C-alpha cells in the first residue's frame, strides 16, 4: 500500500503546485490579477457576453483634441470627441511614403474611409467601433465574435489552421490560450480596411496579434500588435480596456447600414420620378 500512498501524495502535490502556479501567474501590466473572473467548465476564462470599447479610438488611435464635425449644419452634434492615444508611445511608425498617404487619407476622410460606405471593418477596427460586439464561447472553446456594426462576424478557430486561401475583409483568425489570455492571430486580411477615421491604414501584408485578458468580471484588457513590413518600419501596439455591457436587456441589435448608404452610393443613378427624397445642400468642411 505504501506505493499507492506515495503516488497519491505525489498527485496531490502536483495538483497543489498547479493551483499555486495558477494563482501566481504574472499580472497584466499594471493590474493585479483577479482570480474571480468567470470560468468555463474546462477552467478557461469565460468571455461570453456583450462587450464594448468606450473611448474614441475609432476617431483616431493617437492623441486627438475635440473638433467640429464635417457638416456645418450639425453644429455640436456629431462633433469629434477628444481622446487619449491607445498606441504605445503615441506614434504609428509609418514609412515615409505611408506617412504622406495617411495625411492624404485624413484630408479626404469622407470619400476614402470604408466606414462611410458601411464596408466590413476589418481587424482590429471591428473591436473598437462605437457599437457593442458579442463573444460567444462554446464549451469546446470555439469562439464567435459577432459585431453589431454591419453584421460583421468572425469565428476564431482554436488551434492550428491552414493558411487562409484568399485575402478577406475580416481575415482568418486562429486562437489559443496563454494562461488566462486569449491570443488571436489574424492573417489573410486585404488592404481595403482602415484603423480609424483619421486615415490610418495598412497593406495586405497586415498581421494582427490580439491579446484578450480578463482583469475582472466585467473588464477585458485588449492589446493588439500590428505588423506590416510594407507600411510600417517596425511592429507597434495598441491597448485599451473593453467593458461588459451591464444593461439588463443588453443584446446585439440590427445595424444593417447598407440601407443607409445606398442613396449616397447610387442616388445619382436612380430614375427620377419626382417622388424621391429631397435633400438640402449641407455645407461640408473637412479637414
Amino acid at each position, binding site marked *: 500500500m505504501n506505493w499507492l500512498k506515495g503516488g497519491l501524495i505525489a498527485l496531490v502535490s502536483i495538483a497543489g503546485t498547479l493551483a499555486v502556479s495558477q494563482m501566481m501567474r504574472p499580472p497584466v501590466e499594471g493590474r493585479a490579477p483577479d482570480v474571480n473572473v468567470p470560468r468555463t467548465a474546462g477552467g478557461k476564462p*469565460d468571455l*461570453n457576453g456583450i462587450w464594448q470599447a468606450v473611448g474614441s479610438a475609432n476617431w483616431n488611435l493617437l492623441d486627438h483634441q475635440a473638433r467640429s464635425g464635417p457638416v456645418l449644419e450639425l453644429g455640436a452634434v456629431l462633433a469629434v470627441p477628444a481622446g487619449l492615444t491607445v498606441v504605445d508611445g503615441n506614434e504609428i511608425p509609418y514609412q515615409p511614403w505611408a506617412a504622406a498617404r495617411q495625411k492624404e487619407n485624413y484630408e479626404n476622410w469622407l470619400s476614402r474611409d470604408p466606414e462611410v460606405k458601411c464596408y*466590413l471593418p476589418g481587424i482590429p477596427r471591428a473591436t473598437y467601433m462605437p457599437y457593442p460586439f458579442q463573444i460567444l464561447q462554446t464549451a469546446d472553446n*470555439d469562439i464567435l465574435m459577432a459585431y453589431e456594426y454591419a453584421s460583421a*462576424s468572425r*469565428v476564431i478557430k482554436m488551434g492550428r489552421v491552414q493558411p487562409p486561401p484568399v485575402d478577406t475583409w475580416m481575415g482568418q483568425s486562429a486562437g489559443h490560450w496563454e494562461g488566462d489570455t486569449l491570443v488571436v492571430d489574424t492573417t489573410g486580411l486585404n488592404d481595403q480596411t482602415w484603423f480609424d477615421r483619421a486615415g490610418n491604414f495598412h497593406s495586405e501584408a497586415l498581421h494582427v496579434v490580439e491579446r484578450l485578458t480578463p482583469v475582472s468580471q466585467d473588464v477585458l484588457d485588449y492589446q493588439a500588435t500590428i505588423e506590416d513590413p510594407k507600411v510600417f518600419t517596425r511592429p507597434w501596439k495598441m491597448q485599451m480596456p473593453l467593458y461588459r455591457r451591464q444593461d439588463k436587456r443588453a443584446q446585439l441589435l440590427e445595424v444593417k447600414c447598407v440601407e443607409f448608404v445606398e442613396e449616397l452610393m*447610387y442616388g445619382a443613378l*436612380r*430614375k427620377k420620378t419626382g417622388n424621391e427624397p429631397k435633400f438640402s445642400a449641407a455645407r461640408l468642411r473637412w479637414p
Partner: protein
Amino acid sequence: MKALTALVISMAFAAFVAAAAQQQPAKAWTQPRTPDGQPDLQGIWTNYTSTPFEVPDSGDKPDFYAGDVDGTGRGTGPSSFLTDTSDRKLTKAKSLVVDPPTGRVPIMPWAEEVRNYRLTHIQDDWVNFTPWERCITRGVPGGIFPAGYGSGYQILQGPGYVAIVYEMIHEARMIPVDGRPHLGPSFRLWNGDSRGRWDGNTLVVDITGYNDKGTVATNVATQRVRAIPQSEQLHAVERFTRVDENTIDYEVTIEDPKVFTSPWKVAMPLHREPDYQLFEYACHEGNRAVPNTLSAGRARDRK
C-alpha cells in the same frame, strides 16, 4: 488490497460491457448535449438540394421569376462556376414547401403584382431589388432556403445563446434561449427579432418585429416566391431538430395575413459537413450589380 481487487474486477466488467456493446447492432443515436444541458446542434451544416422550392405548375414563368423579364436572357442568377451541382434531393417530398399539401405558397394576387412590378422595374431604383441583391440580408427565415451556392451555416452554442453564422452575407444570428421577451414594437427589422426555446430536443425560434421592406425569399431558387413583399405582420416559427449525427430537420411556418391567404410551411434537412469551408461573402463591398443595372436603365432612358 481490497480496493485494488475491486478496481480490477470493475475494470474487467467494463471491458466485458464494452465488448458486448460492440457485438450489438448499431446503437440508436442519442442526442449529444452541451455541458449546460442544451441539445447540441453545433457544427458546420449545408442545405443544398435539387428539390424545387414549390411544386412546379404549368402556369409558372421560371425565366421571368429569375429576372429575364423581356426574354433577352438577362437574369440575376449566380455564375455557374459558383453553383453547387451535387444531386441531393429530398426523398419524401416533391418540394420544400410541404404545407399546403399542394406544395404551392398561398400568395395573394396583389403581392404577385408587387413582385412583377419590382422584377420589371429593377433598372429604376435599388428598392426594386431583393434585399439579398442589395447586400442587406437574405433574411430570416429566407437566409436558410437553399440558394445553390454559399450554402454553409455554422451553429455555435454558449450559455443562453444559439448562434447561426450564415455564410451568405456574413451574418451571425444570435438567438437568445434564456426566455427573454421580444423587443418592443419600435423595432421593425429586416431579420425580425428571434427568440428561441427548447421543446424537448427541438430548438423552436419565434420571429416577429419585421419591417415591410424585405421579402420572405430572395434567391432565384425560390422562383415564384422570390421578391414577394412582406408586411409588418409577418410571423415565422422555426424548428431545428437534430435527428441523427449528420442531419438536422429544419421546418419553418410562415404567416403574414396581409400577403398569404393561409400559413405555409417549408421543411428540409441540413446536412453536417465538417470539412465545408465557409468563405467571407463580402457582398456590399463588391456590389456592382446594383449600380450597373441602374446605370443601364439611365442609359436606356437617354435613347
